[in-house]
């Protein structure tokens, strides 16, 4: 999706017709728009979303009054006014024009009656160059840029940092699935159980008692699993909200001079606690492994001792080594002569005597086995004693780590107590709130643990019931067919779930790599960003993996890195699927349109963001005020392809004339309106 131009007609502040033409050159991919506060910057951002989806951002006030008030006031009673936004863009080689318009009629008392409410049309030029009108414009637009993705590409810089909040994980996960075209798989997973239930009903109708019982049990288990999964999702949502609240309270405590030191201490202790937790977990894993691989040695003590005793006993009885070998006896008997020269012919007393020895002689093989068994038992006894030593050492280390962690927890508790009893009321209240929020979060974590265990048990029970159903013999042909359909559909569902998991995790890894790359190229801090298994965005210290207490600047850079990574993955996916099959294209090439790009960032972060912006997407539209743009232009200038100023005419007649100097030219920025009206106009910077 490459933006060509945006045309506004009497849309809010923009009187008459106004046009923005966007930079499309790859080396100069930035369109920079300057505007004073209240001049119509947010309106521009909302013009995109209104044209595409008919929606506005939450901070867009008076959403019902879309028409330009100045033009409206000049309209005669009974006349009508059209408000429209037209966006032309290119996608996959085709040129699209989306136009949305509303029409208002002015009543005799000046009231506005809406006679056309946001009607949308979409035209595009096909391969032959002919213009065609889309029969399903809304669906068509959503195919190009799915609605649930637009927040990531058309956004307000001041709010983008919300992406790094824990509760954003669902939004992030959704975006990933949409980009990958996984929504199709996800919906298939959602729809198949209904079909399975239908076939199971047939089985209950025509099947044997055993089949009926297994099918009913499966139905019951499916219901329970669905309920628990819903509870787990609810709990995760609640827990992330508590987590965000905790982060906000911590930030407030860090911000107050009176609590800063104690909060800093808590941050350090919390980082230490994580380190200790990791250490305890690692030691636990080592202990588990040692027991798994060598634990049998502990149970073998009696066995090894009895082998040793038996061996000693046999030696004492001179059975080991055997006094004479069986081969030697057999040779003598075969030879018929003893070593002393006596005859050993059959029937002689010598033959009988030597033959009796045969019973007492030992087999060389058995002897070897005894010796090797004895040596093995000795080795095992030694290993057993070493295992004890290793286990003791690991258990001691774990105990020390647990004690260290518990000590840290005591110190954390002390910090909390000190804050709760702080002489400044506000700080004490903040800490009280923090304790409550922390307890709520812990409750949710415990609930999740219980639900995980329950789900694992239900899953196991379901597998057993499925096997029973699969093995049950059918009597009626209809039951046999229903049974096969149930089994095949359940297998298909399991297959879809596995595919979904593999693809989601693979994308998470790619996203993680891409965010790391972009973050490192933008930020001068050495921190390491990470997308967790549950799609949460975090920032860590480079070596210790301690979480970084993020500032607004860090959050914004991290969020921008995420948006850039998303654009990059969408593009890669688009190119990949375009080659694969024309019918199932997913992903896309998306622009980034950003209002208040540099909001409250300090200069060093502004510099970083302005250097990083051009590389985030193929096309970037940046909307800023003069103050937000300070320290930015020098870095952005080489990449700016087009630039505009929103000239704002204020009805306030005593307002000072304000100008903006760009490329050696001066442009009106804010000025009193000559006729007392309020409007905005777009002027291109030459």
């Amino acid at each position, binding site marked *: 999706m490459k933006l060509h131009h945006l045309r506004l007609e009497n849309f809010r502040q923009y009187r008459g017709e106004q046009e923005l033409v966007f930079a499309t050159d790859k080396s100069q991919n930035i369109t920079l728009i300057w505007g004073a506060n209240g001049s119509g910057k947010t309106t521009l951002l909302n013009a995109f979303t209104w044209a595409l989806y008919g929606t506005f951002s939450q901070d867009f006030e008076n959403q019902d009054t879309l028409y330009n008030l100045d033009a409206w006031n000049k309209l005669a009673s009974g006349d009508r006014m059209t408000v429209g936004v037209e966006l032309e863009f290119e996608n996959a080689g085709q040129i699209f024009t989306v136009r949305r318009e509303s029409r208002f009629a002015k009543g005799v008392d000046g009231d506005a009656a809406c006679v056309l409410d946001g009607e949308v049309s979409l035209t595009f030029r096909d391969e032959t160059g002919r213009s065609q009108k889309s029969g399903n414009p809304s669906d068509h637009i959503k195919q190009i840029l799915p609605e649930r993705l637009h927040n990531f590409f058309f956004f307000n810089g001041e709010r983008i940092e919300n992406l790094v909040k824990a509760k954003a994980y669902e939004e992030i996960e959704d975006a990933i699935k949409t980009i990958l075209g996984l929504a199709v798989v996800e919906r298939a997973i959602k*729809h198949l159980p*209904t079909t399975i239930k239908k076939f199971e009903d047939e089985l209950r109708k025509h099947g044997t008692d055993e089949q009926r019982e297994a099918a009913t049990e499966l139905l019951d288990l499916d219901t329970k699993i669905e309920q628990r999964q819903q509870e787990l999702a609810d709990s995760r949502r609640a827990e992330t909200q508590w987590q965000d609240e905790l982060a906000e309270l911590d930030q407030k405590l860090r911000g107050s001079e009176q609590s800063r030191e104690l909060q800093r201490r808590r941050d350090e202790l919390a980082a230490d606690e994580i380190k200790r937790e990791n250490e305890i977990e690692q030691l636990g894993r080592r202990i588990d492994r040692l027991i798994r691989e060598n634990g049998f040695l502990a149970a073998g003590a009696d066995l090894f001792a009895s082998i040793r005793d038996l061996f000693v006993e046999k030696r004492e009885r001179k059975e080991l080594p055997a006094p004479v070998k069986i081969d030697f006896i057999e040779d003598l008997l075969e030879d018929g002569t003893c070593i002393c020269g006596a005859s050993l012919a059959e029937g002689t007393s010598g033959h009988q005597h030597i033959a009796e020895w045969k019973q007492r002689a030992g087999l060389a093989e058995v002897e070897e086995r005894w010796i090797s068994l004895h040596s093995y038992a000795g080795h095992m006894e030694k290993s057993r004693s070493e295992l004890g030593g290793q286990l003791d050492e690991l258990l001691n280390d774990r105990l020390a780590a647990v004690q260290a962690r518990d000590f840290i927890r005591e110190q954390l508790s002390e910090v909390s107590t000190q804050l709760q009893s702080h002489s400044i009321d506000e700080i004490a209240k903040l800490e009280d709130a923090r304790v409550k929020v922390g307890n709520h979060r812990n409750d949710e974590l415990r609930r999740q643990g219980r639900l995980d265990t329950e789900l694992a048990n239900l899953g196991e029970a379901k597998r057993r019931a499925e096997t029973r159903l699969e093995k049950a013999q059918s009597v009626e042909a209809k039951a046999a067919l229903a049974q096969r359909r149930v089994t095949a559909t359940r297998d*298909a569902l399991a297959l879809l779930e596995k595919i979904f998991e593999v693809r989601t995790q693979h994308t998470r890894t790619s996203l993680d790599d891409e965010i790391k790359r972009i973050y490192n190229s933008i930020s001068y801090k050495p921190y390491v960003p990470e997308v967790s298994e549950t799609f949460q965005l975090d920032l860590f210290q480079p070596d210790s993996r301690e979480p970084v207490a993020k500032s607004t600047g860090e959050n914004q850079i991290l969020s921008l890195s995420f948006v850039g990574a998303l654009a990059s993955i969408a593009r890669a996916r688009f190119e990949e699927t375009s080659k694969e099959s024309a019918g199932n294209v997913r992903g896309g090439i998306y622009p980034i349109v950003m209002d208040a790009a540099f909001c409250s960032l300090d200069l060093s972060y502004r510099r970083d963001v302005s250097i990083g912006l051009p590389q985030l997407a193929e096309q970037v539209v940046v909307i800023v005020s003069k103050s937000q743009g300070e320290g930015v232009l020098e870095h952005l200038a080489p990449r700016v392809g087009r630039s505009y100023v929103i000239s704002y005419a204020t009805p306030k007649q005593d307002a000072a004339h304000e100008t903006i100097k760009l490329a050696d030219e001066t442009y009106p920025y804010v000025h009193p309106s000559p006729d007392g009206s309020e409007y905005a106009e777009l002027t291109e910077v030459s």
Partner: protein
Amino acid sequence: MEIRDQINEVLESASPEARKIVEEMLKIEARYIHMTQPRGIHDDIVEMIGREVQ
């Protein structure tokens, strides 16, 4: 392991019938993807499985 190899491994572990159902299922879902409440989709799925598993 490459994503394609992982997916192939997953597919190979399934029965030919399950693979076919998945393939057909995705085609049905793609047809209904722009409908929030896809009316008629369940009939299509039942018909498809009835056809594939005889």
